[in-house]
């Protein structure tokens, strides 16, 4: 039976990971809506959600047929690749080695591209705008689907993980509708740092389970692994931190 203690890490990892991706997709959809109106933006978004739904419906039954240990190993390795990549980037960003992701800049870039097409009198602009929204939803949504499957599959936690992702979608949508602008104040790198830590911990845990490791403390080992990655991540960020004048 799924308890709150086992579901909570899956819900929070899916929620935080999805929050980052949904904010990025929302920024593009909002840019499309600002330049060309809500019709192409919502059409593209709906088509993107449709494709993601098909992906989930196809992947779901396939996952049930894969032996548990093989599934844990494959998902564990993918989570390690995904989580460590996020953590590495978040460490380098927080240390000032690479630039932070800027939602306002992303919004301005997308708006400028669509406005430029409008100036050239592109007759298919609504179609192009809808496609931009579709691409944003599909590309960011694929990552959300992976996060949900990765933290939920193999332990019967797909529903809690899906609820975490859904909560992230609804939260971004609600805030977006209220403020009606890119969610630039969302601390994207801090979220990525936290999610990178959690996904890396999940990755080691699943990979170990796939290789037959019986972790001390069972599920509690995920928390210990996460704390270890957090300490290493913070230590590395301060080790490679660049003085401000070097960034100029």
């Amino acid at each position: 039976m799924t308890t709150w203690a086992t579901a909570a890490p899956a819900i929070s990892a899916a929620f935080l990971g999805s929050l980052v991706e949904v904010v990025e997709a929302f920024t593009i959809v909002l840019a499309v809506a600002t330049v060309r109106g809500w019709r192409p933006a919502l059409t593209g978004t709906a088509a993107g959600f449709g494709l993601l739904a098909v992906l989930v419906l196809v992947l779901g039954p396939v996952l049930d047929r894969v032996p548990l240990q093989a599934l844990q190993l494959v998902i564990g390795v993918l989570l390690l690749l995904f989580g460590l990549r996020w953590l590495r980037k978040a460490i380098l960003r927080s240390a000032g080695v690479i630039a932070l992701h800027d939602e306002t800049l992303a919004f301005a870039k997308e708006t400028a591209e669509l406005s430029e097409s409008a100036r050239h009198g592109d007759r298919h602009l609504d179609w192009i705008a809808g496609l931009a929204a579709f691409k944003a939803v599909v590309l960011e949504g694929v990552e959300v689907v992976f996060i949900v499957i990765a933290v939920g599959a193999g332990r019967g936690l797909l529903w809690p993980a899906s609820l975490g992702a859904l909560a992230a979608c609804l939260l971004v949508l609600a805030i977006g509708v209220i403020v009606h602008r890119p969610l630039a104040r969302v601390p994207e790198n801090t979220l990525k740092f936290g999610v990178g830590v959690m996904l890396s911990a999940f990755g080691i845990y699943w990979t170990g389970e796939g290789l037959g490791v019986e972790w001390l403390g069972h599920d509690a080992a995920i928390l210990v692994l996460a704390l270890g990655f957090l300490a290493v991540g913070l230590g590395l960020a301060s080790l490679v931190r660049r003085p401000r004048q070097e960034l100029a």
Partner: protein
Amino acid sequence: MHVLRLIVNELFGMFVDDEFLALSVIGVVIAAAIVATVFHASSVGTGLVLVVGCIGVLMSSVVQGAGR
């Protein structure tokens, strides 16, 4: 086709950004699998290879990235 190519590129990019990091992680997992199956190591031994290996790979990749 353009959208399909974008999706495939995005999927690949989800897991591989720094090739050194990706290949090293795979190397650590293979090492842990060898320790577990060939040497019949205990859970502690296999787990240690995974934890120490992945943290070592992360440290090395971050230091390399900072030096670029």
